């Protein structure tokens, strides 16, 4: 039952989420050391990405200048010097063949990788919420149609459709935006399934019924009563989507349809670097390690967000205690 699995992923049903204001959320997030560390790492990466021009200016390099003199042309273009040509001028060495500065490319690459992932996630969430809400609130026919469309979306092999779509769109269209669009367009089904399921659950809640009795229209109720309750599962799910999307961008680049040169992205760099693992290991290892750390940090952060939003998984102790003392009372119904 895919909905059930998704629910497992995002945690609880909305009714069980108590009023957790933003302040409470931050408190619970801060209480988790791993989440704090992860958040710091993510913040650091975002800062690095934002400050890319500054950092490269500090280093005195830019990501696109070739340095033919720094590579051994006869040996295929392997960087001269040890550890991939690390020096005071080139902090992380240079790229094989071109001699472009690796540090500059990595910090600029962070912009693309993070930007694409975040934008794609926003799009997925937006589409998912709109479609899921519409399916959950609409009548049977609307729900049927939208649910089938969601099924189609699920059955679309991301890589293949992305390949096809990326080939269709004219090259003038900015690639990072395009990739984010494509990923967002192909991969919203998870969010919409969650939103639909939660909307259906919310619909039967008494306070939504009360709002209906107040005389509000359907969409007004969705906006006022449901959206805030949907925020928790959706944010939780989105937090898990971001690292996934970073990987997707990298994978698309890996298959040769990603970000276009000379724009650097981590996926692009990994793709180019993979054959160099013996001749210039640092060229491969640095972006690979960064990708790993980023995805790990985002995943841990996502877990933290989930925990902070879903008090049920807050702590095992709490869980057991609640288990012991739940349903203490309540209606005989």
């Amino acid at each position: 039952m895919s909905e059930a699995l998704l629910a497992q992923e995002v945690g609880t049903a909305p009714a069980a989420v108590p009023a957790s204001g933003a302040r409470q959320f931050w408190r619970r997030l801060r209480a988790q050391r791993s989440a704090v560390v992860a958040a710091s790492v993510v913040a650091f990466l975002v800062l690095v990405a934002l400050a890319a021009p500054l950092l490269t200016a500090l280093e005195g390099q830019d990501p696109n200048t070739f340095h033919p003199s720094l590579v051994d042309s006869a040996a295929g273009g392997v960087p001269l010097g040890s550890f991939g040509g690390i020096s005071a001028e080139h902090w992380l060495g240079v790229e094989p063949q071109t001699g472009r500065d690796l540090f500059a490319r990595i910090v600029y690459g962070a912009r693309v990788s993070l930007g694409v992932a975040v934008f794609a996630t926003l799009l997925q969430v937006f589409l998912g919420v709109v479609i899921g809400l519409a399916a959950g609130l609409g009548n049977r026919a609307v729900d049927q149609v939208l649910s089938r469309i969601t099924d189609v979306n699920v059955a679309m092999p991301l890589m293949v459709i992305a390949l096809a779509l990326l080939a269709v769109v004219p090259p003038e269209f900015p690639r990072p935006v395009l990739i984010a669009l494509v990923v967002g367009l192909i991969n919203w089904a998870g969010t919409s399934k969650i939103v639909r399921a939660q909307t259906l659950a919310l619909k039967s809640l008494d306070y939504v019924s009360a709002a209906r009795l107040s005389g509000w229209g359907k969409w007004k109720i969705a906006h006022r009563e449901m959206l805030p309750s949907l925020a928790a599962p959706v944010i939780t799910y989105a937090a898990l989507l971001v690292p996934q999307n970073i990987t997707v961008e990298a994978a698309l680049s890996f298959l040769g349809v990603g970000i276009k040169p000379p724009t650097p992205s981590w996926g692009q760099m990994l793709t180019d670097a993979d054959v160099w693992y013996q001749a210039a290991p640092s060229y491969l290892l640095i972006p690979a390690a960064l990708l790993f750390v980023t995805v790990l940090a985002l995943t841990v952060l996502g877990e933290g967000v989930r925990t902070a939003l879903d008090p049920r998984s807050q702590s095992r102790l709490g869980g057991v205690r609640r288990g012991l003392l739940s349903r203490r009372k309540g209606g005989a119904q």
Partner: protein
Amino acid sequence: MSAGFVVEVEGLSVTFPGAQEVAAVRDLSFSLPEGGALALVGESGSGKSATAFALLGLHRGTGARVEGSLKVAGVDVGAASEAELRALRGAKAAMVFQDPLSSLDPYYAIGDQIAEVLRVHRKVSRRAARARAVEVLDRVGIPDAVRRSRSRPHEFSGGMRQRALIAMALACEPKLLIADEPTTALDVTVQAQILDLLHGLRREEGMGLLLVTHDVGVAAESVDEVLVMREGRAVERGPVAEVLAAPARTYTRTLLEAVPRLDAPLSRQPVAAGDPVLEAVGLRREFRQGRRTVTAVDDVSLTVGRGETLGIVGESGSGKTTLGRMLVGLLEPTSGQLRYGGTEKTSGVQMVFQDPVASLNPRRSIGEAIADPLRAAGERDEKVLRDRVRELLERVGLDPDRYDRYPHEFSGGQRQRVGIARALAPSPKLVVCDEPVSALDVTTQAQVIALLGELQRDLGLSLVFVAHDLAVVRQVSDRIAVMHRGRIVEQGTVAEVYGSPTEPYTKALLAAVPTLDPVLAAVRRAARRELVAA
């Protein structure tokens, strides 16, 4: 074991740590002789369940702090090792829980679950354990126990599940049975059966019974002694007849007074029904469950006059909630008509919901929630809105300055008052109350009921009061409709329905209601047995 006591508790305290430390039980002492029956009675937060859990050492590993001396069936629970504790649990003292559905493993057959417990404590073969499981199932009155032992919990009805849970408790022939709200989740007729069963078992097996309940009536039916608890402390202890008949403490008295009784004098003067504000004719509602169609409400016709209260009683699954929702227009009837004082438009009808937690959006302030119907009606002037909401808050007995507070800052009763205020906001002619007090403690319950009555008088409201509790309904209603399997089986004035019921179902319902008089309880138990036998 000293002097034949199965439970000896001395200075028990249970504290839950956390941001705000909660002392659930404070310095509690009591004992239960072998074969005796004691009820821990109290409202929510009284610490009665925490006490029951402490008896089996179930607080271990949860972070809760347990102090004092606890001896159960000769085992010092505080000092016992894990293994000793495990040997105590189930074998010497067994526990029956409130919700029989969630208390059984949904994935395994009932018989296997009982056999598993048995095999934990006794070195018996799988086959012998299964045989014993069938035996105890048979003992608790499960028909065709051999076959039913192979069923999973969801294939059982609520009462059957509770019987199965009791059978599990019996499996190892414990000296003590701890029943934690064993009937709270059950219908009143089923509740009576389970209480009868517990009663019989105690007598025949000679077990001690520690009953934990919020319902004084349940205690009156089942035990020798009661211990009334409040906020973790013992308030009063004594033989059940004494305490119930002549409570020594004020709190006990308040508690008893708050309990709605079938035999209490009627407080209401029957109101002469005015023009009908609601007429329902031939209402029918079907639900689709997979390929089956289930009829929840079947050909129900009723009328509610101005200023009148119609009580609708029924057990779970009787269709009363579905009916209530149709009356306010939250559900479309499959067929039939609804007229509201001459029009078919749903207007001037509001609802008060059962669960005070679920009926308020946790993310919106209560003032906003109450203002909703006004805003929807087109009122834009913030000042007018605020004034009206404050007025309403005051009207339902809440501090108007708490306009901007959020639901979780209120207690259950207060939240229900907010719900009432919201229902009143658009000045409705009719309010449908769907189990408005069933989630509340008895004392709160009484206050809310009083409030409703007051409001009705002052505002000339018509009420439809949907509930399972016959005594409550009797207290508030002018007329009664009894629902059973989607139909109204009996309808009439309170005096008619409660005084001289004509339908056997109504009779059975009334016979099952626990009484506060232990002597009468015994008489009625005998009567029920006869009813079953007949």
